């Protein structure tokens, strides 16, 4: 057993993100793992725990790296899985099951090299009761709740569009972002309609890339080349595997549930948060996230973003890498949200804030199906 504190000691992405047709899915995991292990000043021999999602899964990743782990986590609940891996790794480290855990993500989302074929199980609940109505992945399911929210709370199309405008301002500061040209609300509303009320620029990118993390006990905080990101609070929650059964289309119960756990463990309130990442597969997700975490009251998030509060110079910097809308989105974006949180805490982000003490990361998996929340800090709790 350790004192209980846990840190992220290593964090890195693949050398490049974007269009990587020469990288297989497995190679993206391997390259990200190599970079994170180097970032922590370690070797693969130091790793005794592994967490990853399929494809190809933790066993395949560990074997490719020459690691024979004592602890394995294959939690695969969509794009938020890596936030849950951090939480589970923290518990494993406290329990003494592992000392140094490697968490990897790699996805050939755009090029589909060595990637699983998309298939639809028409016997599953989602197949029998949703896919038969012509759903086409997240653009037609994740998006369905929003019209109800717009009716109940008066969110306008212009306010929704401004979520993409605000995040592009952050992306413009990030040389690795796929889209960096400043855009206007009119540009967003003039982009192609994908699934009303969502236009193309309100939907995330589809890219190739990967990222990896090294999680270990805070007792070792001084042993690594980079400053630690202390994991001071974590939460996870699940809601519905199908969008039609989401409890209330105007709010995410699981965001609130996981957020409360993480904030309580960290002993913080929203006023303590210097930096925020909310998984933005679509432009409405930051709106649901801001309200569920309690940064604003219900119905206020659209105007809050449109008033400039989350863009560069605003009081609550949100999605400072440019987010899934402008930076990168391989399919399971949660790893990149964690990476930006770590960079901000370390002081090495492309759009670096002024010494943020606390970064909160909210991850979504599936279509409002599973949630993870992390609170990272410069100092131990």
């Amino acid at each position, binding site marked *: 057993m350790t004192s209980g504190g846990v840190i992220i000691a290593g964090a890195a992405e693949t050398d490049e993100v974007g269009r990587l047709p020469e990288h297989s899915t497995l190679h993206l995991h391997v390259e990200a793992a190599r970079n994170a292990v180097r970032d922590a000043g370690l070797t693969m021999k130091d790793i005794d725990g592994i967490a990853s999602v399929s494809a190809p899964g933790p066993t395949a990743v560990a074997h490719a790296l020459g690691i024979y782990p004592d602890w394995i986590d294959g939690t695969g609940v969509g794009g938020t899985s890596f936030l849950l891996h951090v939480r589970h790794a923290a518990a494993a480290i406290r329990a003494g099951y592992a000392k140094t855990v490697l968490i990897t993500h790699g996805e050939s989302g755009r090029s589909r090299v060595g990637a699983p074929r998309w298939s639809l199980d028409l016997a599953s609940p989602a197949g029998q009761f949703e896919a038969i*109505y012509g759903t086409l992945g997240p653009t037609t399911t994740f998006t369905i709740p929003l019209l109800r929210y717009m009716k109940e709370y008066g969110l306008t199309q212009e306010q929704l569009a401004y979520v993409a405008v605000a995040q592009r301002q952050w992306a413009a500061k990030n040389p690795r972002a796929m889209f960096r040209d400043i855009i206007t609300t009119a540009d967003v509303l003039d982009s192609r309609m994908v699934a009303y009320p969502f236009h193309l620029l309100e939907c995330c990118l589809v890219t190739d890339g990967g990222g990896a993390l090294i999680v270990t006990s805070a007792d070792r905080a001084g042993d690594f080349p980079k400053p630690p990101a202390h994991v001071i609070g974590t939460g996870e929650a699940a809601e519905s595997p*199908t*969008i039609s059964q989401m409890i209330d289309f105007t709010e995410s119960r699981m965001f609130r549930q996981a957020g409360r756990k993480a904030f309580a463990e960290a002993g913080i309130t929203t006023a303590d948060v210097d930096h925020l990442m909310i998984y933005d597969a679509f432009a409405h997700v930051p709106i649901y996230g801001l309200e569920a975490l309690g940064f604003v009251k219900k119905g206020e998030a659209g105007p809050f973003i449109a008033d400039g509060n989350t863009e560069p110079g605003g009081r609550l910097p949100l999605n400072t890498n440019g987010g899934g809308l402008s930076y990168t989105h391989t399919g399971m974006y949660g790893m990149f949200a964690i990476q930006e949180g770590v960079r901000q805490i370390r002081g090495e982000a492309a759009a670096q804030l002024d010494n943020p003490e606390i970064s909160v990361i909210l991850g979504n998996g599936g279509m409002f199906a599973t949630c993870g929340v992390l609170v990272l800090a410069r100092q131990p709790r």
Partner: protein
Amino acid sequence: MPKPVPVPTPETKPFWDGAAAGELRIQRCLDCGGPFFYPRTLCPNCGSEHVEWFTASGRATLYSYVINHRPARGFEDEGPYAIAVVQLAEGPRMMTNIVGVPATPQALVLDMPLKVAFERRGDMAIPVFAPDEEADEENS
């Protein structure tokens, strides 16, 4: 390419048998009384195994939707089409398509009354919803 056809499982077969017979059958709990959808063997509210099938009224209201402009397989001939979630008069919600009305924001008004209809696909029938003109008259 035809539209996808659902593959029933033992716990969902009564639903699809009902649809083939022109009925929208859902379940309710005999202990806590709550109706629920999608089909399950335990009540999701209280955990009871004492659940039964009944025929719902087929009346619903439009809870939320998108108008999809990139058709899924089998929907290529539809033009933009509405993928909706409706609230049944009995309470549960389900996904569906809205038929008998243009797939436009002007024609698809949230909370509009709807009535179930059935679309044949091979040997199966798929519940879809159309504007409920009788309910409109009652309200006017």
